[in-house]
Every structure is written in structure tokens, then in C-alpha cells.
């Protein structure tokens, strides 16, 4: 299968001992990869390096064959992402915010902007300034921005943050349909284990900056009753922490 994301020996440490150590991971085309781990395990650090917000100390990330360190523009050409909190320019409307982003992609026109606003249920707020948006609305707008350019790879850090149940369902539907219809590859981090179980078809567990295991969701659910059980046992097997990790 075609490798879409290659994480090679990725290392980035912080002064307080946190960080990621020698991370290796391959994501294949069509994957909806769930990146699972407790707070502070290094999920966001890894994803920030993948999207060029942080430079790695060592190693590299290749997206569609291009290194994010050396060929950033090429690597990011077909990537959409949402890292931590969805940011927007508060003095611009939802539409204008998306238009700012659209300028970087030659084939995104106003029609496509309307499309993603419709897709994320934000169309009715098209001309409203994002200053007054709730966290959930901002998150939806962030997701709209992430998929705006019809990316081949979408990197989402805690995409369901601040969403209500309805929102979670909408977004999950969107992810699944994009993966099915457009063969979009997703790399999603979350601490909501149940949701990851429902959405992702491959799971990687990160703990204390190291990858513990990567497995298909189907294979996991064959051996464990829930994903949560798998997660706890994985962590325990590595002898580091007791029961609940979420």
C-alpha cells in the first residue's frame, strides 16, 4: 500500500523531560489513523512537527514523499490540518477567513468555500465575524478550513474539542464520507477513546513520547471488548501506569 505519511526517527525534547523520542510511524493511503495517548504524551508535539509549526531535533516527516523540513511547500500542498484550538482572524467573517486560506490553493473558489461551510453546518454564519463564535462554531470553522483545499491528507488534533453530541456525529460522518469518497487519509489525535473506536480504522498508542503499538481497529476489537481495555492493557504491559489513562 502507498505510504502517505512517513515519520522517521522523529525526536524533539523539551527542558522538562517531555517530548517525543525516536518516533517511527507509517500511515497508508485511506487510513483513518487514530493517535491515542494521555495528555502530555507527545501527540501535539508530533503533530506540530508534521505541520511545520515546530522543527524536529532529529528525524523527518515525509508527507506524500516530501520532507516537511526541507520541502515544506510541496509537503503541505495537499495537507489540511487543525492543530489544538481552531484559530481564526476575529475581525474577519467566516467566509473571509476561509477566503484568506483559499488564496493559497489555486483550485479553491467561492463555490468550494460555500461547500465546506455547508458540510460543517456553518453556512448560516457565513457573514458573521468569528469574534462572537462559540468554541464549537470555531471548531467547525477550523474543520471547514482543514478540508477546504480537498486535501489528500488531513491532520486533526483533538477535532471534537468543544463540540456537542450533534457536532461530534456530524464531524464523524464527514470524516468517514471523505475517507470513503475521496480516499482522504486522516491522522487524528484524540483522548476520547470511544470516538476513536467509532471513527478510526488503525490505532497507534503513544505514551511518554514513545509509540507503544500500532494495530488495526478490527484486530484490536477481536481480542479486547473495547478499545479502552486495549489501551489500558497496552499501557500496563509497558509497566508504567495503572488503570485509567483517559
Amino acid at each position: 500500500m502507498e505510504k502517505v505519511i512517513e515519520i522517521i526517527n522523529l525526536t524533539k525534547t523539551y527542558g522538562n523531560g517531555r517530548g517525543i523520542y525516536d518516533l517511527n510511524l507509517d500511515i497508508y493511503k485511506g487510513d483513518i489513523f487514530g493517535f491515542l495517548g494521555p495528555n502530555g504524551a507527545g501527540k501535539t508535539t508530533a503533530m506540530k512537527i508534521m505541520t511545520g509549526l515546530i522543527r524536529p531535533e532529529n528525524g523527518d516527516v515525509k508527507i506524500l514523499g516530501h520532507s516537511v523540513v526541507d520541502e515544506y511547500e510541496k509537503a503541505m500542498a495537499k495537507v489540511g490540518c487543525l492543530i489544538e484550538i481552531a484559530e481564526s482572524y476575529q475581525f474577519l467573517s467566516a467566509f473571509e477567513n476561509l477566503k484568506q486560506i483559499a488564496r493559497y490553493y489555486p483550485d479553491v473558489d467561492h463555490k468550494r468555500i460555500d461547500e465546506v461551510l455547508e458540510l460543517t453546518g456553518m453556512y448560516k454564519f457565513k457573514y458573521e465575524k468569528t469574534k462572537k463564535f462559540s468554541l464549537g462554531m470555531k471548531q467547525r470553522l477550523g474543520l471547514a478550513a482543514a478540508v477546504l483545499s480537498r486535501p489528500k491528507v488531513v491532520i486533526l488534533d483533538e477535532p471534537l474539542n468543544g463540540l456537542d453530541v450533534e457536532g461530534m456525529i456530524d464531524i464523524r460522518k464527514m470524516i468517514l464520507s471523505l475517507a470513503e469518497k475521496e480516499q482522504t487519509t486522516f491522522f487524528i489525535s484524540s483522548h476520547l477513546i470511544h470516538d476513536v473506536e467509532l471513527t478510526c480504522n488503525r490505532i497507534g498508542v503513544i505514551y511518554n513520547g514513545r509509540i507503544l503499538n500500532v494495530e488495526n481497529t478490527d484486530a484490536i476489537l477481536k481480542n479486547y471488548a473495547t478499545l479502552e481495555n486495549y489501551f489500558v492493557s497496552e499501557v500496563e504491559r509497558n509497566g508504567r501506569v495503572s488503570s485509567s489513562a483517559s
Partner: protein
Amino acid sequence: MAVFQAALLNEIEKLYRKKKVLVAILLSLAVIVIGQLVIVGVRSGFGLRGTGSVEFPMLVLSVVVNTILPLFTALVTIDSFSGEFSQNSMRITLTRPISRFKIYTAKITSIVLFILGALLLLLVFSMLAGFIFNANSASFDSLGRTVFSYLVSILPMTVLALGIVLLANIFRSGIAVFFISILIFLAFKVLGLLFSQYSSLFLTTQLDWYNLFLVNSFPLAKIARQFLIMLGSGIMLFSAGFYIFDKKEF
């Protein structure tokens, strides 16, 4: 190049959608109006002519180039860098398929365009005011020199902006950058007065370099030196600022 254009367009859009630009325009116009009122007052009160039609734009330039223009350049620059750092909105641009160098350059280009716009606005309106309210003293030569003086002022202002860009990349807080900029600006002004033989080292002196173009003899050597000093410091500040911007973590 297309992505650079996109980034530049974005920066310009952000710039003009903010109230700061509107305030800058209003303040510039206020300077012209107040200046003209002062001139009229001086004329009727003291019996002095004050300024003629061509001298008025030069008076306006000499005032704004040392006051509101650096002030608004600082505000816009700090907004463009520190503002987006603190709100994390820099990520919106950073995660697009565009290199940091292009983002950095686009931001600076938009600031330069802002300065140019402000200068042109001031030129047009001060000329209008100059011609309407003052005795005609224009000649083709003096008119040309006036326009040229406004245009060359873009250079020192750009160097100033680059200096603030560097500061904005070093210090996290926009307010800190603002006050440090003002302190440095004032310190340079004072040092330039005290040590006038070394004044070309203090970059605030170059703000008045348009005066060189008014000299009849056209002191080419001096102009070239001033130009190279600005070019050198510009390159230096640009590279230093970019070095930090490129290493920054968001």
C-alpha cells in the same frame, strides 16, 4: 510566486480590515488640517507668511516622518507579528503550503506598502491643502523635489519597520516591543544630536535624509553613503529577524 502573492494579498486584506489603518488615515488628515490651521494662524497673527504652496507639504513631511509615521509603522508592524504570535493566528498561515521566508517577506512587503500608501496620501492631501490655502510658490523644480522627498522617505521608514520586526521576533509581548521601540527611537534621536559627527550610525537620522535631495548641488556621494547605510542595516535587520522567525515554535 503565486503563494507569495496570496500571502501578500492576505496581509493587505488583514491590514485594511483593521481599524488601525483607518485611524492612521484620519490622523494623517488631522495633521494636515491642524498644520494648515497653524499656518493660517501664524499668518494672520504674526504677519508671517508661514509656508507657500510647496513648502506646506515639506512642513507636513518633516513633522510626520518623525512622529505619526514611525508610530503607525510600529503599530502595524507589531500587530502583524506580535499580534498574530500572541493570538496564535499565525498558525493559520504557517500551516499552508508556503515557506516561512515567503510569509516573512509578505508581511514586510505589506508593511512597506502601508508606509507607501500613507506617504502618498499625505503627499496628495498636503499638496491640495498647500495649493488651496497658501500663496503659490510652486515651480516645476520645487514640485518635483517635493514629490521625490516623499517617495525617498519610504527607505528609512522601511529600515525602521525592519528594526521593529526584529524586536517583535525577539520579545513576545507586543506592548514590550512598542515601548522598547519608542525608547530606542528617542535614544537614537538624542544620541544623534549629542554626537552629530556619528549621527549616520543612528538610524533615526536617516528619517530626514530626504533633505539631501533638496540640496541644489545634489550631494551624490553623501546620498550614496546614506543609501548604503540604510541598505546595509536593512539587510542586517531583515536577516536577523528572519533567523529568529524561522526558528520560532508555534
